[in-house]
């Protein structure tokens, strides 16, 4: 059995140290910054400049759910501050100075406002469906701003469209884009699927930001026939689909990391035909070619995900 106390002691020490550090640092309290600007008198003033044809134009926000003032949760609802609900008090932005550039609004959704401040604004309203697991998630820890992916003023937020969403994700995950063009891939490039069919970008708990708590549970959403439980299970199948498959794309159908027989021979060596070395010489060998060509091991052992046949112990029925 493993006896590696070093790692555990190290881990405990780090945790303890950090705990103390946090305790003492929390005691310092939050910084408070008094805003200098005040709220303006509503969207009418903002839209005078940010109307259609101007740069930046914000008129399309009224085509989005946020722009529906009849909705009590809208930034434009009765009692809200319209544009300044998100952009903060911005009276100083409205007044053009005699010299120099115009002052920015209280909050801008770009490099001028710290990411955490931007996100606080969004999470203030979207706390239910987004914020629950956002904190501590990979994207939060990478200091992504909501506006890095979402276009708030656009009539159609690109990430809500199957094809446009992929472009948003690929801008930081370029390798995944190339994987979708491989010989065997999930149909992302056709728009039949998109990233959020499997991943939840706001998720913090599940592996790989998946929509379900495990890899297999996520795959079973569309491939429920492989869920079992089978009479004769294939052990790695029950553990992790990713042991044999590359979910974003592979050179070997169906999304296999390698093709049989070598894929199978990584684990199986019982002697006899499963453990033989098959070389190009065997392609013409009328006895050996059945183990190598066509579907190779799958010519006979096709029930690799498990079999419910009482005689399916070798996955042939």
């Amino acid at each position, binding site marked *: 059995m*493993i006896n590696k106390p070093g790692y555990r002691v190290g881990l405990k020490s780090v945790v303890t140290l950090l705990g103390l550090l946090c305790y003492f640092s929390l005691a310092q309290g939050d910084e408070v910054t008094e805003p200098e600007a005040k709220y303006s008198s509503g969207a009418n003033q903002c839209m005078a400049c940010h109307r259609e044809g101007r740069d930046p134009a914000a008129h399309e926000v009224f085509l989005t759910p946020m722009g529906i003032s009849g909705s009590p949760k809208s930034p434009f609802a009765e009692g809200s501050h319209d544009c300044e609900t998100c952009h903060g008090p911005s009276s100083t932005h409205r007044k053009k100075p005699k010299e120099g550039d115009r002052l920015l609004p209280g909050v801008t959704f770009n490099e001028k406002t710290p990411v955490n401040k931007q996100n606080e604004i969004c999470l203030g309203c979207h706390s239910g469906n987004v914020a629950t697991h956002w904190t501590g998630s990979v994207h939060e820890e990478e200091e992504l701003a909501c506006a890095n992916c979402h276009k708030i003023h656009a009539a159609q937020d690109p990430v809500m469209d199957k094809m446009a969403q992929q472009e948003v994700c690929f801008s930081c995950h370029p390798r995944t884009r190339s994987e979708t063009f491989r010989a065997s891939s999930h149909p992302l490039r056709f728009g039949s699927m998109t990233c959020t069919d499997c991943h939840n970008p706001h998720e913090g708990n599940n592996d790989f930001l998946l929509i379900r708590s495990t890899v297999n549970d996520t795959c079973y959403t569309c491939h429920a026939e492989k869920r079992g439980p089978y*009479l004769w299970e294939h052990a790695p199948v029950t553990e992790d689909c990713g042991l044999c498959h590359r979910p974003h794309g592979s050179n070997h159908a169906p999304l296999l990391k390698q093709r049989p027989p070598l894929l199978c021979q990584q684990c199986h060596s019982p002697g006899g035909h499963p453990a033989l070395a098959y070389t190009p010489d065997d392609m013409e060998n009328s006895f050996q070619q059945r183990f190598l060509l066509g579907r190779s091991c799958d010519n006979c052992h096709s029930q690799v995900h498990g079999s419910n046949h009482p005689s399916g112990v070798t996955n042939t029925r």
Partner: protein
Amino acid sequence: MKKITRKFIFSLAALLPVMLLSTNSPAAEEEKSEPKIYKCRQCVKYTGWRGNIDFGGAYVTDESLRFGDYRGLEKDGFYAAIDGDIHFRNLQGRYFDLKAQNLTYDSRELDLRLGIQGVYEVRFGWQGIPKYRGYGTQTPFIGVGYGGRNLTLPEDWVYANTTIGMDALESSLNVAPMKTQRKILDAGWTLNMGSAWKYRIDYQQQRKKGTRTLGAGMYYTNATILPAPVDFKTDQIDMDLTWAGKKAQVKLGFITSQFSNLNSTLTWTNPFHAQPQHQTFRAALEPGNKSYQFNLAGALAITPRIRLTGQAAAGQLSQNDPFTAYTINPIYSDRPLPRSSLNGKLDTSTYNLTGKIYARLNNRLSFTARGKWDERDNKTPVDLYTPVITDLIPDKPRYNRPYSYKRELVSADLRYRAHRVIRLSGGARQENMDRTLQAAERTEETTWWGEVKISPSYYSELRFKYESGEREVSDYMQPDDGGPVDHPLMRKFNMADRDRDRMLIELDLMPWESFGINLSYIKAEADYDNSALGLQSSDDESYSINLNYALGKKANMYAFYTHDDIDAKLLNTSGGNAEPWNADTRDRIATFGIGLSTDINEKSSLGIDYVSSNSTGDIWVQSTDDNEPFDPLKTDLRNAKVHFDHEFSEHWGLKLYAEYEKYSSRDWMIDGLGVDGINMVLTMGEQSPDYNVWYFRAQASYRF
């Protein structure tokens, strides 16, 4: 479940008009209360109906099954082409959004959402996904189809020991497209109750119908590739109740899914032998199953800088389809089964606890700790079965092996902003896995990682990340399950000692506002040095370059290139004291893309995209010094798209689209074999796809 499903759909359908009628007409509402936005003279008031309907025709120049995958355009010739979107808004928040794509193709998609913003939403969706499961397939079998669970051969079939002697094969062959069509129906409803409560329920039904290839052996000598039926149905209901406060959120959810296969077995006439006991064989197809899971998730902000999140889920999978007999072979068909069905049952549970603490050192330090526990507790009864292998060979009794496992995952990460431009991060992760009935009872993996991120400005960032992990395995002892035993030196790679290293270097630069460049390099190595046999190493190297260039406000150009190199080394032996043989595999994939999108003027826009993806797969198996490598596996995809939109008037426009795709592939495992190229195996003659297809589409666009 059928009853539940129907009831649910009827309830939803019944609820819809009630909900729509439960609020007054827009005009009445407008009279009752004047939304605040009316007071904003400068605000654009998008109310009423608007939309876009595109209709016209499409033409595909060549027939190609692979080009038809997911597109539904496998046949050459003309197609009608209809797309569109229709929207309604009023100032009280009532909305209606309908989006339709490819309505006349097998890949049609429909998405409908309506409701009152912030009050409720009703959703309906429909999607078709066509896919071929093999190209160029033929078969002599009769009765092929999604209900084809009894496959027979023509009366004049000539039985033989190998395909060489099957004299009637050529005259019996029929083209048998192995195509599945997935149809997905979605319906859902969300209700916001006050400012904090929300209830959501979604129902989904997936039907998958068609045919696929399925291999089945006979003795250890022959095999037949069969056109197996596919008629799957999965019903899923997913619902949750959320309470979201400012400092805390709780979500209670329930998900249930039922899979049913309308073909539980496949019976076929054996094409190889004519003796009575060899005449008909039978395989079991995927059994129906059920699953459900309750989950509870929550988050609590203890202080603005300390937040705890957690999630717990528990559920069950079950499967109890009746068993088929041990064999259809009359000699052994009366063997008694230990039970009539599996009564398969396994409990699943997942517990997550994530804590994140921000420690204030001028906003510089954050710390995250996580724990996750997964369990698959397989309670399927264990019985002694006496299989008849391939319907012919009585095997010794074997117990079934319901696998269970537990996974524990604990991690701690620290992020420290040492300077305005430098962030240092590091962490540790411990993952332990306990398995039952397998060679290794326990594996423990410890991973350490560190990262430096340098961001001199918002427009430039350099990141270097390194990760190193070591997995150790408890005593590796192959279980004796009564079946064939692997070589004692074999180590299955998911339970073998492993050293893994991963490095990432990324550079993001935006030298000027209109130009961005991203470079990334990833290298991952996994070594299984303690495995005398089995996977020895697995390396993965990838680099990418991405460019974006904005040509003024109206045009954007992009280009990307990615190169992947995936290697693996394997050692195995034919048994006993035989000398090990080794295999090296290497996949290299290069993907290049370039594109432009531009508004030519206020009425016209143009988009051009080109992608090429080229792959080579090398396999070299060496049992002696003079073994040659296999011919490289090749794929070459080239895809170009051009679209041009023009508005003639306020209401009318034109949309033109052209796509060219060239695909070629070489695969020595199937190319040129036909149905009888493997003497002992009757295949379906699958071939590597190779095609050149042009797809043109012209649509008039009516906008309102």
